[in-house]
């Protein structure tokens, strides 16, 4: 029973998110929506949403990592 309800909640949420025009490749989405559920048909209308895309950082190989800095400091000490 609980699994079925969780599946329905997931489906309702994904139906709402799919309506958003600008889903990022990576990020977080907060939304509020209103809808109806008739048997398996979910009709949903997004009222408010906020998208926070994840900042992608490139790895710079020349930059020393935290570990090596610590090691250098230990060597100096």
């Amino acid at each position, binding site marked *: *029973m*609980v*699994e079925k*309800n*969780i599946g329905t*909640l*997931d489906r*309702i*949420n*994904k139906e*709402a*998110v799919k309506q958003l025009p600008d*889903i*990022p*490749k*990576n*990020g*977080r*989405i*907060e*939304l*509020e*929506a*209103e*809808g*109806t*559920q*008739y048997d398996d*048909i979910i*009709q*949903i209308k997004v009222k408010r949403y906020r998208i926070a895309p994840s900042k992608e950082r490139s790895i710079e190989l020349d930059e020393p990592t935290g570990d090596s800095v610590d090691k250098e400091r230990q060597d100096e000490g």
Partner: protein
Amino acid sequence: MKGKRIVEHHIMPIVSILLVLCCAQGVSAGNKQIMSIMAAKAVAERAIVESVYGLKLRSTEQVDDMVATSYVGKTDSKTSALISGVTFENVVYDAEKDIAQATAVVSVGELTNIDGVTVDFNNKEFKRVGFGTSTKSNAGPLKALRAAELDAYKQLIKSVIGFQLESNTSVENFILQSDQVKVKVLATLYTADVTDYGWTDGGDAYVKMQLDLKEFSELIGDTVTNVENEIYEVEGMGAQEDDFQTNIQQ
């Protein structure tokens, strides 16, 4: 002979009284039966009020990371009305289980419902069944039945009136992951009718409930457009025990 008659005259009534008392003692089960039947009648009356006058239902379902143990589903209902002319039929009592069943029946004319809307039912007859027990340990199936009833009300509201969604979702490489999903329902409902109910072999209860959408649309003064059928039926489910809570306690 006269002495024998006097003895017979005095002894026979005493013997009769003793016999009645002995038999009555054999049948008597304290006030359990009365209490259970009264409880069943009260539950059936509540169901009638919910159908005729209506009920306010508030429900919240929430899950985090789609994990079953985090799922919280809570439904509250509220109704209060005085409906006169309710009669009871099919009052049955199971002495072994201490469970009573009663069917409340009422013919309704004009009535002002929970939303303050005056409705003329033209003496339409409403019938609802209620169960009651005075033994706490036997209440499991009855609680499950009430849970199923509330679930059915909730499903009807989600279909014909609607729900609100609040969610947090993360996206990784365009794949959606629902982190937190909350669905809320808050509405009044009336004229819902129970068409079937029972228990599965596992002890879960089910309640089939239907709503005449034509009648309901006329009452709310708005057309229910998202449902195609004129009569919409749902099946609510209710459990006797919370398996997840039991597992956590163990």
